[in-house]
Each structure stands twice: as C-alpha cells, then as structure tokens.
C-alpha cells in the first residue's frame, strides 16, 4: 500500500537507468521513501543550489578564458567580453544571475531545513557542514564581486574589508591580510582572484560531496511523523529511478531556464573603471550585505560590522543545541501552533525594526544624546543588550503561551530573521544619496 493518495504523486515502477542517470544515481540509494517525493518536502532547494553551482563552474571557466586579473587590465577585459566576444555578455550575465540566485537559493534552503527541524539530531552534523557551505557561497559571491574592478566593486570591497579593522586585537592584521596592504589594490585583486576561481570552489566541491553523503547516511531527508508505521518508520519505498531522478531533472531544467531568462532580460551591471580617489554616492554593497550595511548606519561599527555578523554565525551553529532533547516532528514549523508563533514573532520583528529605522532617521543626524556616554556604549553595548533581551523575550513569551522548546527557539529566530530581512529591504530599496531614506 502506498501512502501517496494523489495519483500524480503515485510512484513509477523501476526503470533501467541511462548512462547519465547512472552518474546521478551514484549519489542516491536505490530506493527512496515515497513520502520524500512531494515537492513541499524540500522544494528542491538543495538540488537547485547544486545545479547553480554547476552553472557557475561552467560559465566561470568560460569567463576565465578572457578575464585578466590585474587592476590595469581587469576592467578592460570585462568591457571587451561584453562588447566584442560573441555571446560574452550572455556568459557574463548567466554567471552574474546564477551567483545571485545561488546565494538566494542557499538561504531559502537553510530556512526550509530549519523550519522542518532538519538541523536537529540526527542531522546536526550536516547542519554544521551546511553553515560552512553558506559561508563559502557568500565568500565566493563576494570575491567575484571585486573582479570586474569597476567603481561598484572597488568601493563595496573597500567598505567590507574595512569592517575587519574593528575586530578586537587582530583587526589591523586581518585587514592587511585581506587587502595585502593598507588599501584595496593589486594585491587585493590577486588574493580575491585566487580565492574565487580556485580555493573556494574546490573547498565547496569537497564539502558538497560530504554534505550529500551525510544526507544519504541518515536515511534521506527529514519526513513528517506518521509517514510510516512501527515496522518501517519511513513508509513505503519506491525505486529512485525514475521517481526521484525525473523530479530532479525537471528541477534542474527549471533552474537553468530561469537563469537563462534572467540573463537575457537584465545585464549584469558594469560601472566605470575603479577610481580610488572618488567614492560613488551612494556606495552600495551587494544585496546580501545590505542588512549589515543598514546596521552600520545605525550602530557602532564594532557591533554592526563585527559583532552582529559573528553572533549570527554563532547562533546558527548553536541552533541544534538549543533545540533540547525532543525529536523534531518533521512538519513545517513543528506544528500549527509553532507556525502561528513564528508568524507573530516575525511580524513583530519586522514592524518593530521598520519603526526603529524611521525613528532613528532624524536622531542619527542630531547631536548625540547623553554626550557623556562614550559611543562604544551608547551605540554599541546598549543596543547589543537590547537585542539580546528582545530575542530572549520572544522565546520566553512563546514558551509561556504553550510552545515546545523547539518552537520557542523558532519564534526567537523568526523574530531575528524578519528584522534582518527588513533591514535588507530598507538598504536595497529605501536608501538614496548620502544614505538618506527615500522612496524607491
């Protein structure tokens, strides 16, 4: 008896795999639980990120044929690529949109895993591998950002590497190690180039193999309780080929098509060649750093540039341990109550953050209140304490109103994520010249 009732979801009988699917099948077991097949289990996000990585590797290798990594030549080679090389603009656009898509899809994949309890034991190890992958993806996207050596690239990288200086004690050393000197220059480009085309992609490839292996080792993706019975907790098994492989193939084609359409419609930006003497106004970071950039407007740099990003990574790593001993239910948000609490927490976080941003707009230009208090306390330690209280408060309130421990942690995380999401949106759409609030 199959647990799947929708005839469209009914499993197909096993099929002899072709040469290509033989390769794909190497990553999979022969049989998979029928309950793992519906799209809403994973939304195919992990697989989508993997496909985007392959697209990036192929288009990146093509770019390498034309691109030259020196400050004198980089911008010229990208201009030539776009203007003269046949399909050069297309290749560059595909690389650009696949890169942005990969950051986005990886973040969505993280959310999917988290809101289904996939970060809790027995998948804790793979969550840690995932956090490392996330850092690699962002590092890859950011090192690539510098390579065209235009005004956008130069100043975004100046600002982002400048943040390292606020790391306690080793800040100056880290800054010079990242830039290869006091300022962004030829040594920075050399570093970022090697990282971008060799070190980071190879590290990502190795870690991805490990990531996939761990998914398989615990018996596949997390399933909702009640997918099977006592004897076989995962329910009925169906042949991987063609049941899973066909779905994966469709997903891969969909991702490829989406990237091609984006590449055909929108060109990757290329501003004038980098000018170290003049910052553009406004100077904007890539979108996945906009939340941090918005924090920088409001907070002491040691908190905005170093503290919050570091604490964010620590929080991600701590999530499995915060979940307690209960096993996850495998349902979205744990339960209907969990979903309600997460939604309310997210709404409060979003609205509260928006209100704070607007309220601080006149304040941050006025002379500082309480001038006797040093800025490190006024816009560093105090906001940090307030953030910690809000997070703990969200978890505590949720717990008091009947949430399980996992769900209360989920409420606090939803609060933080929504808040960061609003900061990102404000940074992307509402900041104009001189970082003033403007309508889009």
């Amino acid at each position, binding site marked *: 008896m199959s647990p799947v009732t929708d005839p469209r979801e009914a499993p197909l009988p096993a099929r002899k795999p072709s040469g290509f699917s033989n390769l794909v099948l190497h990553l999979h077991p022969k049989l998979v639980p029928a309950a793992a097949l519906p799209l809403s289990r994973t939304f195919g996000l992990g697989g989508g990120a993997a496909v985007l990585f392959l697209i990036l590797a192929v288009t990146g290798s093509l770019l390498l044929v034309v691109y030259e990594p020196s400050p004198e030549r980089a911008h010229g080679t990208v201009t030539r690529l776009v203007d003269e090389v046949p399909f050069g603009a297309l290749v560059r656009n595909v690389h650009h949109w696949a890169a942005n898509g990969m950051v986005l899809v990886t973040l969505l994949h993280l959310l999917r895993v988290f809101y289904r309890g996939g970060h809790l034991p027995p998948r804790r190890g793979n969550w840690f591998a995932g956090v490392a992958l996330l850092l690699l993806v962002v590092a890859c996207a950011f090192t690539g950002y510098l390579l065209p050596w235009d005004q956008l690239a130069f100043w975004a990288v100046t600002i982002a590497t400048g943040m390292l200086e606020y790391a306690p004690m080793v800040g100056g050393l880290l800054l010079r190690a990242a830039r290869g000197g006091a300022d962004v220059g030829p040594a920075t480009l050399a570093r970022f180039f090697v990282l971008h085309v060799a070190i980071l992609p190879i590290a990502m490839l190795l870690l991805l193999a490990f990531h996939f292996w761990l998914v398989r080792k615990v018996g596949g993706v997390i399933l909702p309780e009640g997918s099977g019975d006592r004897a076989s907790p995962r329910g009925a098994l169906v042949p991987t080929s063609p049941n899973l492989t066909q779905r994966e193939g469709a997903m891969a084609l969909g991702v490829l098509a989406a990237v091609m359409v984006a590449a055909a419609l929108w060109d990757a930006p290329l501003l004038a060649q980098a000018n170290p003497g003049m*910052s553009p106004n406004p100077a904007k970071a890539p979108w996945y750093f906009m939340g941090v950039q918005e924090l920088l407007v409001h907070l002491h740099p040691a908190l905005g540039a170093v503290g919050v990003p570091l604490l964010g990574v620590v929080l991600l790593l701590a999530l499995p341990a915060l979940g307690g001993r209960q096993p996850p239910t495998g349902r979205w948000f744990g339960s209907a109550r969990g979903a309600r609490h997460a939604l309310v927490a997210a709404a409060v976080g979003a609205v509260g953050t928006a209100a704070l941003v607007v309220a601080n707009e006149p304040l941050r230009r006025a002379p500082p209140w309480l001038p006797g208090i040093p800025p490190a306390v006024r816009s560093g330690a105090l906001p940090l304490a307030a953030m910690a209280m809000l997070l703990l408060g969200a978890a505590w309130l949720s717990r008091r109103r009947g949430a399980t421990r996992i769900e209360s942690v989920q409420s606090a995380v939803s609060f933080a994520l929504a808040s960061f999401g609003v900061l990102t949106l404000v940074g992307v759409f509402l900041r104009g010249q001189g970082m003033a609030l403007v309508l889009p």
Partner: protein
Amino acid sequence: MTAPSIEPAAPDRRDFLGKVGKGLGILAGVELLAVVVAYLAPGKGGAGRGAALVVAGPVGEFTPSSVRAFPGGKFYLARLADGGFLALSSRCTHLGCMVPWDAKQRVFPCPCHASRFDERGDVLAPPATRPLDLFPVVIEGGIVKVDTSRRIGRARFEPGQVTYL
C-alpha cells in the same frame, strides 16, 4: 631500548596519548594559520611608500577659513580661521570611503554611511568614531609641504595638532 609491550596500552594512557595527539594537531593548525596570515599581511611599512612629500604651495595662497583638495595625495589642506594649517586625510575613518568637501555647509559628508566631519576633522555625526587622520604639515621658507607617508590617527581634535607659521 625496551621491548614493545604486547598488552594493549592501559585505557588512561591511551586516553592521554589521544589527548596529546589532539592538542598537537590543534597547535599545528594554529601555527599553520599564523603562517598563512603572516604571509598574506605585509609589514606595516608597506611597499612603495617612502618619500611622499607633497608641495602644496606658498602660504599666501591659502586664505584663512578655507579648505583645498589635493586628490593626488588623498588629503585636504585646511587653513583654520586663526591661520593654522591642518592636512586631513580624505579617507573616512569609518570604513574607508573618500569624503568630499561641502563648502556651503562647511562639512565633509561621507557618501557611504553619512558620517560628517567638520573642517578640523572632528566627528559631527556618527557612525564614524574617530576624527579624520592627519598628515604632518611642514612650512619651510613660506612654502607649505605635506608628508603623506606618515598617517597620524587621533582620538579628537587638539590645538597641538595645528601647524602655524
């Protein structure tokens, strides 16, 4: 040399050796990291520095309460109302953008995160936490010169930082 023992090592000894092995491994990892960072971070002196004396011009060319940009040297030469000179680095102390000079409002507004500095380099509006860096000014025979090889960080403006005739 003692004969190798046939019995397996006692659990606490094996434990201990395991811990030593782990500790050495971590130590080796830290050393490796330090080597990589040191390899990547050049000395503070930096390459290509050295004599970078910019001749700004005769004293008389700079009227009091004026600010003139020297884009090549990435600094502004400010002549304060009392006739003293300050050479202000144009690199924002927040995260390193180049600040323009707004002559009408008499401020340096940073385009990146909206820090504002006055003509002495002091912070008027955060997020910057330190005033603009200085370069030493020397006046020799009525000619103002700025040494852009020596960047001076400071916590606040003090009268001692100003160079007079």
